[in-house]
């Protein structure tokens, strides 16, 4: 693609990409750095971008990969336990109604947002891509570079973690219930 088109095509995604970056980094300065680097990389690689393929998924993918290799990203991520869990055959326990769910009903959106901010990165990013950025499963698979089956099982676990933060945090990082 001609780089002259880049501005027209990529700038409309700016607000959304910034929101995604800020949710990932949790910090304005880091989010700005991340968005800036994403656009710089995308501009550089734009010639190889195939017209007709999904620009949105492509931009999110660059941003996400940039985040994972950044200082904040490296500090925040620890996907090994997730990958192990996924390698074990996607066992998903049958759902049950728990007191936590009933509790959620009484809480407001702020609570959900705080729980989202406290989620481990692999869960937070997939929730953001699906629920906030409204990407399809197929687009999410492109962004994360995983099969659609993995998107579905990870999303399921992420939702469980979001609803029962204390129990299912796979990194064993204790989350203080008072901060939720």
């Amino acid at each position: 693609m001609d780089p002259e088109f880049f501005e027209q095509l990529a700038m409309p995604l700016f607000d959304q990409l910034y929101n995604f970056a800020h949710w990932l980094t949790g910090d304005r300065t880091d989010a700005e750095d991340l968005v800036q680097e994403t656009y710089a990389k995308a501009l550089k690689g734009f010639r190889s971008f195939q017209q007709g393929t999904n620009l949105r998924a492509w931009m999110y993918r660059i941003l996400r990969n940039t985040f994972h290799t950044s200082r904040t990203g490296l500090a925040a991520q620890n996907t090994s336990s997730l990958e192990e869990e996924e390698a074990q055959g996607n066992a998903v326990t049958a759902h049950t109604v728990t007191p936590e769910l009933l509790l959620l009903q009484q809480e407001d959106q702020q609570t959900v947002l705080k729980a989202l901010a406290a989620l481990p990165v692999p869960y937070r990013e997939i929730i953001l891509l699906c629920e906030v950025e409204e990407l399809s499963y197929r687009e999410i698979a492109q962004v994360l570079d995983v099969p659609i089956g993995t998107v579905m099982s990870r999303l399921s676990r992420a939702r469980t973690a979001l609803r029962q933060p204390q129990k299912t945090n796979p990194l064993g990082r204790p989350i203080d219930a008072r901060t939720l």
Partner: protein
Amino acid sequence: MPVPCDQNPITLASYLDGELAPDQIPAMHEHIATCPQCAIEIAELTRLKHGLRAARGHHTPTLEFKKKLQQQVAPPRRPRLNVLRFIPAALALAATLLLAFTWTQHSRRQDAFSEVADLHVNALASTNPLDVISTDRHTVKPWFQGRIPFSFNVPELTGTEFTLLGGRVVYLHQQPGAQLIVAMRQHKISVLIFQASPGQALPFPASTEAGAHNAFTVETWQSNGLRFLVIGDVDATEIERLAQSLKQANS
């Protein structure tokens, strides 16, 4: 204790995410209607979805940062014209004219596409985007009769990944046209149809394969005196599939 349900929670979530295959949806509806456990789970997931809506646009960039980034991605302007100084005058004039011509054509096309993108975005942003709300093509087609100066066929979308939501009358360069809104999963696609009369040629290329414009995928073609445009934030292959069914219905 009620009998535990063996419904896979992933299937329930796919259903809510609009990712369940259309042929599985009736069975899912039936199941939810008879299984309190799944009905509660659906309610909980819906609640969570609503809660997460607050995260959309929650963090907004500063204007300062936006300007900074815009400068970073703006294409370098003008300096290329300096090259012309080294070309003999006549050739330079020809080159300039050609450059001006292609630039005008190009920007006219870009303008036309942005206007189409605006029509699409307006429909999505509007609280009452549709003048006629119906998933039935036999309702939508006659509705347009008398409201626009041409007629077209609405393809049968039942049983496909696309769902017709309805239509409205829109104007592009003072020409009335039809806009159909079609849903695909969580995405909405606009189909725009205008008369392609020679006097008021809309500045579109004769036809394009689905391509990206302003973050939307657009495909356009002309058939039997009508100009068709399909635009949405989905993949080119998906736009292409919808375009095919329109082409078949109007061939």
